[in-house]
């Protein structure tokens, strides 16, 4: 008997005429690791909520079809009993913590189940040590980092000892290190403790290989479900971006074997290319960047000279930062949490003044209230797009910024709405839009003044791969038009694909800065998956397009005999290609 059985499930959120889920039929086995992926609005989170019993109980709306859990219809199950069996962890760690103290938070669910004190103490102790939360056991939840908060949310659910763990994009708000930690725990829970895991996720390069089965959703329907390799092939066939780069690379080449990890990919590539490995670094075309001489001629937009900064009573956050960013550059700033990236951005926009050193933006040296001098030419997007949205309509949101700067050209509103594909939402309340659309509205509200400098703090956090690609493309176009783009991001894939220059920070210092191939190509840990695939085989490759360009001709040249995932022999000859996302 399957653990979950879903039959012809259709669901409408209250007040909507478009179904969020359409005719879903699905079975989930006990102990399975199911990865659910798809774009924004594809219905993946809704499906997770149905399986957790939150839809329709919490949300209301209209529902058709049936969902069975261990042979019994989910809707007739007692809520307390269901909570003992199915646990759910949500996307935003900030929005699921109730108590102010770590230990009390872990016990919250247990108190709700009405467990006796001895049982609660035992379970809390077990979970604290399994999740390695002892160092913060007595801490205030408000003082924890994002990663620790998500670990706490997971611990709080695990203490209830559910049979099934449902995770709705649990790593989307976290930095790579914290994300890795959460995924490792989930992997252990599935492999060593037999938990059934249903994970909705977009960071596929880290979890695709963990899944026994991948469910690809679009428009409220399941468009493919099968093994990771089958999922990758189907996504590529449909032109969808929801595949990790290594799998996409091979699926695009119609490989009979679709590897899902870098290790498998490298083995496959080496077995095919044996004796034919390009030993030297290929002459990878370095996009459209001008020559070094021309770069020097360009105006410097941001210039930081020996900048130091420390918060009052705190440690030094920035140490001797010197950086020059020129007109038309697209710069990505990478680094771990606490490296000083966001502080650096605040110094650039004049929200903070350096303790020592000089800062020039557009040739001006921001003094006290520095942002007043430079804000007309500078667009700054913070990590949370919701901070920008409070007007009745999307159009009003843009007019608010224009009004503040005394601008009256309404044509600019039309143009920016058109460029960011927001025209149809013009009269909608921005708070009614999806997270990706909200981010575009926030971006529009700061770009409406036509600034020369665009600064974004973690713009790819929590948005799907398709939207990420659109955002990158948009920013690249802006840079091509002569605007300067500075992006702080944890997303190495995004930086490798779209930025021209990369700055790497560590503990308040710049440890590497330069053309992206020079910085990321030499890094082992801060390099995109494609670069890891090609390291030692074809050095210097960073993006999917470069890999296709460099390795494609070699792979097309001769077919190879390969052992497939199922152990069968297959003749691999390339028959086609596809476009990068």
């Amino acid at each position, binding site marked *: 008997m399957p653990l979950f059985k879903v039959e012809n499930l259709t669901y409408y959120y209250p007040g909507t005429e478009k179904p969020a889920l359409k005719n879903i039929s699905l079975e989930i086995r006990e102990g399975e690791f199911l990865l659910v992926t798809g774009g924004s609005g594809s219905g993946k989170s809704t499906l997770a909520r149905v399986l957790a019993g939150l839809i329709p109980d919490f949300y209301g709306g209209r529902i058709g079809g049936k969902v069975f859990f261990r042979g019994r219809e989910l809707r007739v199950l007692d809520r307390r009993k269901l909570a003992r069996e199915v646990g759910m962890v949500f996307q935003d760690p900030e929005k699921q913590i109730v108590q102010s103290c770590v230990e009390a938070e872990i016990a919250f669910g247990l108190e709700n189940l009405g467990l006796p004190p001895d049982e609660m103490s035992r379970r809390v102790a077990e979970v604290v040590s399994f999740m390695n939360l002892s160092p913060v056991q007595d801490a205030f939840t408000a003082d924890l980092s994002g990663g620790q908060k998500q670990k706490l949310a997971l611990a709080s659910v695990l203490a209830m000892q559910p049979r099934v763990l449902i995770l709705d994009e649990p790593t989307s708000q976290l930095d790579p290190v914290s994300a890795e930690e959460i995924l490792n725990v989930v992997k252990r829970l599935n492999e060593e403790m037999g938990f059934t895991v249903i994970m909705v996720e977009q960071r596929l390069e880290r979890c695709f290989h963990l899944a026994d089965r991948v469910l690809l959703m679009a428009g409220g329907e399941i468009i493919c479900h099968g093994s990771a390799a089958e999922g990758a092939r189907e996504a590529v066939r449909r032109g969808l971006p929801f595949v990790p780069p290594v799998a996409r690379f091979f699926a695009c080449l119609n490989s009979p074997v679709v590897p899902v990890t870098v290790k498998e990919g490298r083995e496959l590539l080496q077995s095919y290319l044996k004796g034919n490995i390009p030993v030297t670094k290929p002459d990878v075309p370095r996009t459209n960047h001008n020559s070094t001489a021309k770069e020097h001629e360009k105006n410097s937009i941001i210039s930081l000279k020996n900048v130091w900064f420390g918060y009052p009573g705190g440690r030094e956050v920035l140490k001797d930062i010197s950086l020059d960013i020129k007109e038309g550059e697209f710069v990505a700033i990478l680094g771990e949490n606490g490296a000083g990236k966001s502080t650096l951005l605040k110094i650039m926009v004049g929200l903070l003044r350096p303790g020592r050193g000089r800062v020039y933006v557009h040739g001006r040296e921001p003094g006290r209230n520095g942002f007043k001098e430079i804000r007309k030419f500078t667009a700054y997007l*913070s990590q949370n797009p919701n901070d920008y949205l409070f007007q009745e309509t999307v159009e009003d949101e843009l007019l608010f910024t224009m009004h503040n700067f005394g601008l009256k050209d309404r044509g600019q509103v039309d143009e920016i709405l058109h460029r960011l594909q927001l025209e149809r939402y013009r009269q909608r309340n921005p708070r009614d839009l999806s997270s990706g659309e909200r981010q575009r509205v926030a971006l529009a509200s700061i770009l409406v003044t036509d600034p020369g400098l665009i600064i974004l703090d973690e713009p790819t956090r929590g948005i799907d791969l398709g939207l990420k690609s659109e955002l990158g493309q948009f920013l690249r176009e802006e840079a091509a038009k002569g605007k300067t783009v500075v992006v702080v991001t944890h997303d190495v894939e995004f930086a490798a694909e779209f930025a021209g220059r990369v700055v790497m920070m560590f503990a308040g210092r710049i440890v590497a800065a330069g053309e992206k191939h020079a910085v990321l190509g030499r890094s082992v840990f801060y390099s995109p998956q494609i670069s890891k695939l090609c390291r030692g085989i074809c050095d210097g490759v960073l993006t999917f397009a470069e890999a296709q360009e460099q390795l494609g001709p070699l792979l097309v040249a001769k077919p190879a005999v390969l052992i497939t995932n199922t152990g069968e022999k297959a003749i691999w000859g390339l028959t086609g290609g596809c476009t990068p996302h």
Partner: protein
Amino acid sequence: MFDRLFYREKGLFLQSFHPATVLVYLLVLLILSLIYDHPLYLLALFLLLALLIREVDGLDAWEGFLKAGVFLMLVVMMVNPLVIRAGKTIIWHGPAVPFLGKLDISMEAVYFGAASSLRLLVIISIFCLYNLMINPDRVLNLFSGVAGKSVLVITLATRLFPTMVRDLQRIREVQQLRGVDFDTGSLWQRAKKYSGLYNVLLLSSLEGAMEIAESMQARAFGSGKRSVYSRNMIRPRDLFCLGGSLLALLAAVWGLRYGYGRYTFYPEADFLIKDGATLVVLFIVLFYLSVPLLLSEGWKHCRFLKSKI
């Protein structure tokens, strides 16, 4: 900026008491500060509180509390001599003022103002010590059994307050960069600008509230009767401290029956130390109240005591 005013877990001895013990101890201090008139007794309480606050590493926070207190203290000290006419020892003959009459300032009125201010500082210091010594979560936990839902609402508010302060700062920065100048314009214009700021905060908080509620429902909140998870433990130190508090209260009440701790300001101020018993009673009360302080010192310096309490 408000961080230092709130409780921080520092692993200190004085933070390890059962919350009920701390509540009883602070309540006794509060009662004594209200029933004592004697400036010497109030001063002794103030000094004891200073030592306790130092012991919980809270002198910085105390400074913040005292800044507000000193202002009130100055007001009391200035107003009291101007309006009280009961003193006998006139130190300054002032002019006649409508409604108030002749502004004669007496030594006793100044003296009374100073003693009242001292009482105010003692009370403020008690609240400061409460903030430094006791985890609010644990206090609320004490009452979870009898008022579970109210306690949960207070806990949620406590948990969300620092987040909202941070959010507000971030939203303000975002609006400043969108061209809003919060420090310019008429009062009405400024109020309008700030209303926009709070509007964003309110909308985001409401959305956040839905997500928190969903997470609570997923963890079976409201599915039936709740139990209470308590992390509070009773140790010998709690018994010593409770005993000390109760004995201090008994000694104080006994002393007050015989006039020790009372003080006459008007028409002529009493002697500060009337007789030796004044000091003896004060010493006894202070000794019992010093139990947590003595235990803390013992815990630090005496391995035997440390293992026993």
